[in-house]
């Protein structure tokens, strides 16, 4: 947030609005730091539980993708970390420049479906909400929803490689998330 404003501002000196944005962000950094530490303590749990639910809903994915669940676990850990860093910094433009667009291209290339990604990120948000305090999740949520929204906007592949989708009774609340 601060970096972006200072480097991108076109005004000779910061405008009152830019200054107010920085001050507003600074008033939240202690809470952001605490939320980052909470994510650090819980990232393993969030990812494991998310992958377990994906495995239940998409039991055949490993037939199409060797080590598919393990790779999903690795990727979700990375995405959780990147999202937490974006939350701490108070902006996700840098994250998008570094990672999100590139990663979405990979998701398209391996013929995943938008439905699988919506299910997966719905589970991810559910588990993040369950694992974090209300205050920390409130800070994470806009950035996590942004990442989920960005990564699920892919076309339906001509031939998907995810296998059967098994509706489960403890289904996620993806419809309640903003993506």
């Amino acid at each position, binding site marked *: 947030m*601060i*970096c972006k404003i*200072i*480097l*991108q501002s076109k005004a*000779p*000196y*910061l405008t009152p609005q830019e*200054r107010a944005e*920085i*001050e507003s962000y*600074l008033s939240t*950094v202690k809470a952001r*730091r605490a939320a*980052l530490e909470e*994510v*650090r303590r819980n*990232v393993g749990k969030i990812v494991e539980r998310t992958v377990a639910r994906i495995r239940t809903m998409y039991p055949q994915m490993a037939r199409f993708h060797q080590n598919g669940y393990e790779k999903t676990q690795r990727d979700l850990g*990375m995405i959780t*970390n*990147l999202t*937490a*860093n974006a939350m*701490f*910094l108070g902006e996700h433009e*840098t994250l998008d420049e*570094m*990672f999100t667009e590139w990663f979405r291209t990979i998701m398209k290339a391996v013929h995943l479906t938008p439905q699988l990604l919506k299910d997966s990120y719905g589970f991810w948000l559910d588990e993040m909400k369950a694992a974090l305090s209300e205050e920390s999740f409130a800070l994470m949520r806009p950035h996590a929803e942004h990442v989920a929204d960005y990564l699920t906007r892919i076309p339906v592949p001509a031939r998907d490689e995810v296998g059967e989708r098994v509706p489960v009774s403890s289904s996620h609340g993806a419809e309640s998330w903003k993506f």
Partner: protein
Amino acid sequence: MMNTWLTDIIRTTNEALFNEADLTRIMTYYASMPARLKLSEELERLEPTLVKSLQTELSKRYPDRSLYSRRFIQDIVESLRCVNRAVLADDLRLLRYRWIDHVLDVATAANIDLQEIRDAYLSLREILQSSLPRSAWETLEPAYEELLDALTRSPKTLTV
């Protein structure tokens, strides 16, 4: 977009969470932001009066120097915007990229004696020291000294 130490940390950290050392550095920087913002406010407030004050001071001290036109003095005063931006970012590389390299190139191309430019900044320093609150001057001083220091070295040394 130009990188600062903070963007360097973000890119180096990549997919890991920020580590303790980086977080400590970032939090220390954040704690210093109110003072940096205050300096920025003070410089913006002073800028309209600085051109006149500097012009008066330079014509008194160096009545024979033709370099000190109103346009030149205006540029010197407006260069404080680059100094301010570097202080806000806590990265003197911004000052180097956005002003120092430029002024050294111009001085070389126009065959201007760097000492005359430095003298103008020395006069401006005195005005700033007497006009800014002490804490604001202390926030500005390291960057200002960097600028003065660069003007004592030859352009060739700096571009190596």
